[in-house]
């Protein structure tokens, strides 16, 4: 019964997203549509990064690397399995959907695995050292892609078709995935696992003294956040003709950090707002490219000095009302 209700709700939500997508595609020009899609991709990036940086307090500043792994992974797998799937299911939208989502999942898997590889050795390190190591790994990943000839090296990977990668990404897929990821991460954050992650952030030594398997949890959270960056990467890849190493430089990691800092480190709704903010400001400042980074940088410094908790601190939008927070434990 419960499963039935939930499936019905899910179907309704997906239908709503689909309808909204039709509306956006009909009502707005391509320029605005692209901003909307980027906002959706950013939401996924921000919510995923917030899990490890915000909730768990382990500061990673090289996440662009995982986005790259997801992008390349999804693009490559998508291109390679397309013939087989089309052979089985024909060439309609259904077949495309299957190819695309399998590709995205593959990208997420690769990204998650690279998250494990980076996380396992790195998460032993303290705050600023961890940050620098993740920066290093992010750069190494990018340098590797830059030199990988079978993936197009510096020119980029455009698939086997001369016209580039298939443009699978649209409003529906971006926001279906975004909604799913937000719900899953929200549920995770407000669960015993989420509590344990927050405990690690608050006081890792005390958390350990309370039998929390800190290393395992940190690495898991890191891998999950890498995988979500991978999904975002896969979605991003199929909005472009190809995937280029240039799209995943340190600036991208900085964009992701600005998203979660502006919204409030530790807040999921904050991450959503931050993701939207960065997408919109990116486009608004397209003509002022050279000023964008100056302003972002200044924004980071000023926020840290004046309001380090960002917009929402570590609370959610629905908690903004200053009342005695009924413990989630008491809710049933």
């Amino acid at each position, binding site marked *: 019964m419960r499963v039935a209700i939930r499936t019905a709700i899910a179907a309704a939500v997906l239908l709503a997203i689909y309808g909204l997508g039709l509306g956006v595609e009909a009502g707005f020009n391509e320029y605005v549509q692209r901003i909307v899609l980027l906002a959706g991709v950013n939401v996924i990036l921000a919510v995923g990064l917030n899990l490890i940086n915000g909730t768990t307090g382990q*500061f990673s500043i090289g996440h662009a690397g995982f986005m790259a792994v997801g992008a390349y992974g999804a693009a490559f797998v998508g291109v390679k399995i397309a013939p087989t799937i089309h052979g089985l299911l024909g060439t309609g939208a259904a077949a495309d959907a299957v190819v695309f989502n399998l590709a995205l999942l593959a990208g997420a898997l690769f990204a998650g695995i690279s998250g494990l590889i980076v996380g396992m050795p790195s998460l032993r390190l303290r705050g600023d*050292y961890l940050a620098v190591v993740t920066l290093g790994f992010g750069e*190494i990943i990018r340098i590797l892609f830059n030199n990988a000839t079978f993936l197009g090296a510096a020119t980029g990977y455009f698939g086997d078709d001369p016209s580039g990668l298939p443009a699978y990404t649209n409003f529906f897929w971006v926001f279906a995935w975004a909604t799913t990821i937000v719900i899953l991460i929200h549920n995770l954050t407000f669960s015993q696992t989420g509590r344990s992650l927050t405990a690690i952030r608050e006081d890792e030594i005390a958390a350990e003294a309370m039998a929390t398997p800190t290393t395992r949890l940190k690495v898991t959270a890191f891998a999950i956040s890498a995988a979500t960056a991978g999904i975002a990467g896969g979605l991003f890849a199929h909005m472009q003709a190809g995937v280029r190493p240039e799209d995943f430089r340190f600036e991208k990691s*900085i964009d992701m950090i600005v998203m979660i800092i502006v919204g409030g480190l530790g807040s999921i709704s904050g991450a959503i707002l931050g993701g939207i903010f960065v997408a919109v400001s990116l486009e608004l400042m397209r003509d002022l490219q050279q000023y964008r980074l*100056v302003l972002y*940088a200044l924004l980071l410094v000023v926020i840290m000095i004046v309001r*380090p908790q960002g917009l929402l601190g570590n609370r959610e939008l629905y908690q903004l009302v200053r009342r005695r927070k009924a413990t989630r434990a008491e809710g049933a």
Partner: protein
Amino acid sequence: MTQFFQQIINGLSLGSIYALIALGYTMVYGILKLINFAHGEVFMVGAYTGYYTAGALGISAFEARHQSFPLYLALIVLIASMAAAALLGVLIELFAYRPVRNAPRLTPLITAIGMSLFLQNAGMLVFSPNPQRYPAILSEVRFELMGVIVTNIKLTIFVVALGLMLGLHLFVQKTWTGRAMRALSFNIDAAKLMGIDTNRVIRSTFAVGSALAAAGGILFGLDQITINPLMGVLTGLKAFVAAVLGGIGSIPGAVVGGLLIGLAEQLTAGYLSPEYRDAITFVILILILLLKPEGLLGVVRVEKV
């Protein structure tokens, strides 16, 4: 074999520059436990200050007449640059780091990253994003020593770097401020209780570190001939790795680390492939943090529970 010695010479000279910059990182970290991400940009500003000062002192006229730039003017360029950088370092500390000095560790980290980005991009706006040719503040003279090409520039880099490092050593050992700096790096709270004006000492630390980085900037310009506003990013990161390699917080460590990174980079470029000269530094960073995070000359810190 001569190839090997050539790489060694080049590596040591590059490494000396890294060491000068690494000193700034290590001294600030030793006291504040903060990675001054903006330090690479101070290095960059130092190089550019040298560029503009030399221009203001009419170096283009000398170059046009194929005359060497007078030594006393070169010294003025160096000193002006070091002074400007010292000022910049102090301002960065005052406006970006001091307000968040007591905040949880994450906040100063983000502030430092933000400051670094700000200076990079402001630099691109102010100095033009295009690379500039560095003026011949020192005219190059080459000579051969047993098949190895050595230039007076490389020698100057050694001499200047060595001189500055010796100066720093004397400063830290013999002067009151230097000793205060060491005291703060051991226990900042105790130093405060002893009546030491910690703010002043911290300012001096930033000033001295920045001045050294500026000298490194000018030497870098002389050696590499081009400069650009993003030069501090990669070089700064490499110098930071050098500081970590040597043991962050340790002054001799910064020197050792710098020279080692310079050597590693040159040898990789020479024997493996120039493509990987930057990557080797990241690999060293990861290895050292995983295997011996306190660095070669550093001390393991035990956290009190």
